[in-house]
């Protein structure tokens, strides 16, 4: 019921524990501080203000924070919530309602080859996420092929090749080639070798670099030429450390490519994750995976309830 029903309960526990550990600082700002606050205090204006500050500090953004606080305020009035404990329940519920629609699993087995295109800004963790994603797909019994579409950054191809070697996954790439050509070749190779999933890496780019945004649109078009219907999934890799610019990134990449999912990486650092709330409000693209560690197994499907629990408790 928490999104990992099919996993062993032991594994689920360790996963939740890790997510919780990863969000420890956020909790210190949000839950920890609030837990102490909410338990004892009466519901008054000062409490709402502190709540607002806590949400802002967790990168929820001004707009989402104000909406959450307004909603909470209205509910407190209507239902006469008087103690902090009840308010905490209401906050959890509001957060869950907000982020639950983002929880939609990736169905990579519905066609073959299933082409996944991965995009994102520089340093968000695209290549690392692809390595982890390949491992996860293999654990689902699918064969994977990687396309080294980052032909720009120094040693990006080598980095992907190293991940491929670790997982025993073939990597298609060429030095300094055209990213579209690499993806085209990779899809051709996947068709020939009857491989289930192709994951195409792309070079990091900022949405302000319009010529690079045009380039990535072309990569998508080329994929469709190699295989009608491809790419079946366009993932944006977001660094959880990013502030409100994450929203601008989602909007810009969505407009350019039509995103079908997001991967939120580096959630194992300190205070963060709140930006998910802002995304849920303004551009609800499904959050497919979250990365909570450096290990190859530390990429898991997003589970809204776990996320909210970890955030508030």
């Amino acid at each position: 019921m928490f999104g990992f029903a099919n996993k062993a309960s032991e594994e689920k526990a360790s996963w939740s524990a890790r997510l919780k550990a990863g969000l420890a600082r956020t909790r210190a700002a949000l839950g920890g501080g609030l837990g102490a606050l909410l338990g004892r205090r009466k519901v008054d204006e000062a409490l709402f203000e502190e709540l607002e500050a806590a949400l802002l500090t967790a990168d929820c953004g001004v707009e989402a924070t104000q909406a959450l606080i307004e909603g909470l305020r209205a509910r407190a009035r209507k239902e006469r919530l008087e103690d902090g404990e009840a308010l905490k329940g209401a906050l959890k519920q509001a957060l869950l309602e907000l982020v639950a629609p983002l929880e939609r699993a990736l169905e990579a087995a519905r066609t073959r080859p299933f082409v996944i295109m991965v995009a994102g800004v520089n340093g968000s963790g695209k290549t690392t996420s692809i390595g982890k994603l390949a491992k996860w797909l293999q654990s689902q019994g699918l064969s994977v092929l990687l396309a080294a579409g980052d032909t720009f950054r120094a040693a990006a191809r080598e980095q992907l090749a190293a991940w491929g070697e670790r997982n025993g996954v073939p990597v298609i790439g060429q030095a300094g080639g055209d990213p579209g050509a690499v993806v085209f070749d990779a899809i051709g190779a996947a068709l020939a070798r009857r491989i289930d999933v192709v994951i195409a890496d792309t070079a990091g780019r900022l949405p302000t670099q319009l010529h690079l945004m045009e380039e990535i649109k072309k990569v998508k078009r080329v994929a469709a030429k190699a295989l009608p219907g491809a790419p079946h999934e366009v993932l944006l890799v977001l660094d959880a450390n990013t502030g409100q610019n994450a929203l601008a990134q989602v909007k810009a990449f969505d407009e350019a490519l039509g995103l079908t999912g997001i991967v939120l990486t580096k959630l194992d650092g300190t205070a963060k994750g709140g930006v998910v709330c802002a995304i849920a409000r303004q551009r609800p693209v499904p959050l497919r995976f979250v990365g909570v560690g450096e290990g190859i197994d530390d990429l898991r499907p997003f589970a809204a309830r776990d996320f909210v629990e970890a955030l508030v408790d």
Partner: protein
Amino acid sequence: MLDNLTARLTRIAKTLRGEARLTESNIQDALREVRVALLEADCALPVVKDFVAAVKAYALGEEVIGSLTPGQALVGVVHRELTRLMGEANVGLDLAAQPPAVILMAGLQGSGKTTSAGKLARLIAAGKKKVLVVSCDVYRPAAIEQLKTVASQAGVDFLPSAPQDEPLEIARRALEHARTRYYDVLLVDTAGRLAIDEAMMCEIAELHAALHPAETLFVVDAMQGQDAVNVARAFSQALPLTGVILTKLDGDARGGAALSVRHVTGKPIKFVGTGEKLDGLEPFHPERMASRILGMGDIVSLVEQARRGVDEQQAQALAEKVRRGRGFDLEDFKAQIQQMKSMGGLAALVDKLPAQLTGSINPAQLHDDRQMRRIEGIINSMTAQERARPELIKASRKRRIAAGAGVPVQEVNRLLNQFEQMQKMMKQMRKGGLARMMRAMKGALPGGR
């Protein structure tokens, strides 16, 4: 960069300019706008609170009395406080140590350490120093390979290391190597690490102890959120940082990290990184940055960038023309396009112009390199006389130019329109848009009266 903040503060200044005097209540609205704008720019909440309180104290205090208009006074206070928050003046690298002077790079994963290391190495090498770079990143696949490529692009020496080596061993070996071969500067790249990862923070503290760096630079992503404060604090507690490099500043609408990192670490931001090309590293100027946030543009920085990218004389002439808005003809327009190409595109330049001017420019047009080439082609098809006096160009000349450049006549019209707009913009600036703002600024500052 910082577009939203600029637009917002410009708007606040405008509404305040309409007011007769500065009162407790109308300043309250403006301050709330400042607060929201800063929060949306990811400036850390505690820093925002301090900032707003300081601005309020000054604005309601004596210092405002006697200045020209209250609106200008508030903009002045905001400007000064922004500058103060980001550090008073630009601080350069201090490599005055017994050679080899060691530079240690530290930061989160993906903040841009390796790219910045390459840019920095190039910059130092350009100052006639012998530079050696080495990577202690034995964790991320191909990180060493990346530095090697970047180093060769930068034209500096690279000391190979291998993923099975110990970072501390690599550092010692590099130091020895640099010492015996008389390198001036040793630049040490490290793996990205989380501030809460104790083992990794220990490792970099050990590296620091072994290397005795002259500069320990904290690399931070300009897009980072509220957490920038915590990360910066943790790093500055683990390491005696000497400065900060702010990367990816060419992204959009962010820069709050610039405002808060300095406040929290107490260390100066020494450089800002823009773009992935190796010349995308500039000294950080707090004063200019504050001006830019306030929509005053950044002519000085523009000239400096031009100086490095193109012939200095040409750049000065251009800056002079920009300032005067006189004698700007199509020949200059073409020269500008060529200069822009060597300076990382029009977008980088537009970024430095005042906000009210950039609003009229369509960003999609700017980025299209093909169109730039086309414009160049059209201008090339004009005679020298036509270039100097575009008003000569009428229907039949237009047809000839269009045929010569292989474009439809409409394209020629569009170019002439654009050129005319640009000329107008420059005239506006000459008419004191800029100068008046500067004067107003001075009037608002206590020292300037």
